[in-house]
């Protein structure tokens, strides 16, 4: 399997605080890579660097074999790199349909149109309907986001990202605050969406990560402790000491 994303030697400081030190790993095509580690390990900082919201102090990124360090977040999105955020970032004043359409139109290249392009707009609308239908959300799409439950908002938040048809999807704690059943449903939507999409999943729920991921990278104090299959990670002594501890034995 070829690597979609290669992170090599990435470091980042905030003043005297070393948020990331020499982080190296790759994400392969079609795989789900779990990214775990204690709070403050640098997981979200890493997402911010991968997606271009922050610039690394050292190291570089290759996406699809090409260096992308000079690209703005918007340009990275246009190449299929899509992220979600730790807290739900939907548009509360707009309807469910309009929320997802915001992404679908951008994907169809008509995000900033004023008039014309009816065919492409129609196709984007159809895509929104399909996403809502496939998600199992029992909603017509006409509801305002602020009227939805938290779990439903997180699912729409995910659908917004899926409407961009990502090649690499970076999910930052998408299951935080969700019941087990809701979290599983959400991950099911991700996996059923497109088998070619590579996913990087940050989550604190160890069961979810070990159950849903092909490989897992463990971050601690800004460094990669270990990266490998769930079995390898579970058996790794440094990971057990730093993070998993007794959890791994249960």
């Amino acid at each position: 399997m070829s690597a979609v994303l290669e992170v090599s030697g990435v470091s980042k400081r905030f003043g005297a605080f070393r948020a990331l030190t020499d982080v190296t790993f790759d994400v392969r095509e079609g795989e789900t890579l779990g990214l775990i580690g204690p709070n403050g390990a640098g997981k979200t900082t890493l997402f911010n660097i991968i997606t271009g919201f922050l610039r690394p102090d050292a190291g570089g990124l290759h996406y699809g074999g090409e260096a992308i360090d000079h690209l703005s977040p918007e340009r990275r999105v246009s190449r299929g790199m899509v992220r979600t955020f730790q807290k739900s970032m939907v548009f509360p004043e707009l309807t469910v349909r309009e929320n997802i359409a915001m992404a679908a139109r951008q994907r169809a290249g008509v995000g900033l149109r004023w008039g014309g392009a009816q065919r492409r707009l129609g196709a984007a609308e159809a895509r929104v309907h399909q996403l809502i239908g496939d998600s199992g959300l029992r909603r017509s799409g006409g509801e305002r986001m602020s009227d939805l439950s938290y779990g439903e908002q997180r699912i729409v938040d995910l659908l917004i990202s899926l409407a961009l048809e990502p090649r690499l999807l970076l999910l930052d704690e998408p299951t935080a605050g969700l019941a087990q059943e809701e979290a599983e449903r959400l991950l099911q939507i991700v996996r059923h969406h497109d088998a070619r999409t590579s996913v990087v999943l940050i989550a604190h729920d160890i069961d979810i990560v070990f159950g849903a991921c092909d490989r897992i990278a463990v971050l601690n104090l800004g460094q990669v402790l270990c990266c490998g299959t769930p079995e390898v990670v579970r058996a790794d002594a440094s990971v057990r000491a730093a993070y998993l501890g007794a959890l791994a034995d249960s």
Partner: protein
Amino acid sequence: MVAVAGLSAAALLAGEFHLRFLAEILIIGTAVMSLDLLVGFGGLVSLGHAALFGAAAYAAAVAAQHLGGNLLFILGTGIAMGAAVAALMGAVIVRTSSLFLLILTLLLGQIVWEIVFHWRDVTGGADGLRGLPPLSFGPWVLSSARPLFLLAGLLALAALWLAHSFVDAPLGRALIGSREQPIRMSALGYSIPRIRFLTMLVAGAIAGAAGALYPFVNLYIGPQSVHWTLSATMIIMLVIGGVGSLWGAFLGSAVYLAIQTYISAYTDRWQLFVGLIFVLTVLLLPNGLAGGLRRLASRMRRRRAQQA
């Protein structure tokens, strides 16, 4: 429909003075409505909107003095000037928000005022420009109050339609998105500066069209029309009328200009009344008169449905 009926009734019934007064409300209201695109939909509170409106008004007045008052030419001049000043302002402000945006638009607007105030040869300085030729459209001279009022009415309706189509279009939706979740919009691949710049152009063009007609209502244009105090007045009108409603802009400018015109006949302290109404609006009708009317209408509909 209601708006068209109201405009027709006013055109038939009102006298010369009132028609000019109503024309002024419609023209200023159109400019305030274009400000609503920025404030209500983009969350971009600008204190420089009068610069777009006033610069267009001066451009139209100067153009008319030298080349005559052909309506389409004058409108085109105003729209081009409004959009050009908006483009300059937009290029500077697209990456700012909140307090910095407020101060930058204030400063840029005052630069326009400085130019107008000191470029006496062209703008007439503090005296402004008088003795403008009347507007004309083909063989018709639009100098009396009725055609000017109808023209202002047509402008207001066209601008309202245009603004609604903008807000409903993907670009307008993206503007709302950039107000609600700017970071998510970037993560969806939208360029926030581009959204803001395009919105500034649209708002500038509409304000410019309104500015183009403004000097011809009283055949005079003065530096007050580019001053930041008019920008602040526009914000007050917008809040009274209802931020984010578009049509409320016309209500707000009607209330403000009515106080200015009628109460100032009795007292110099008419602005006290404006202040009072502003405070009452903020306290009792946070969505302005338009929001209040909408609430009233839905309550009446509900009551009628219960009775039926």
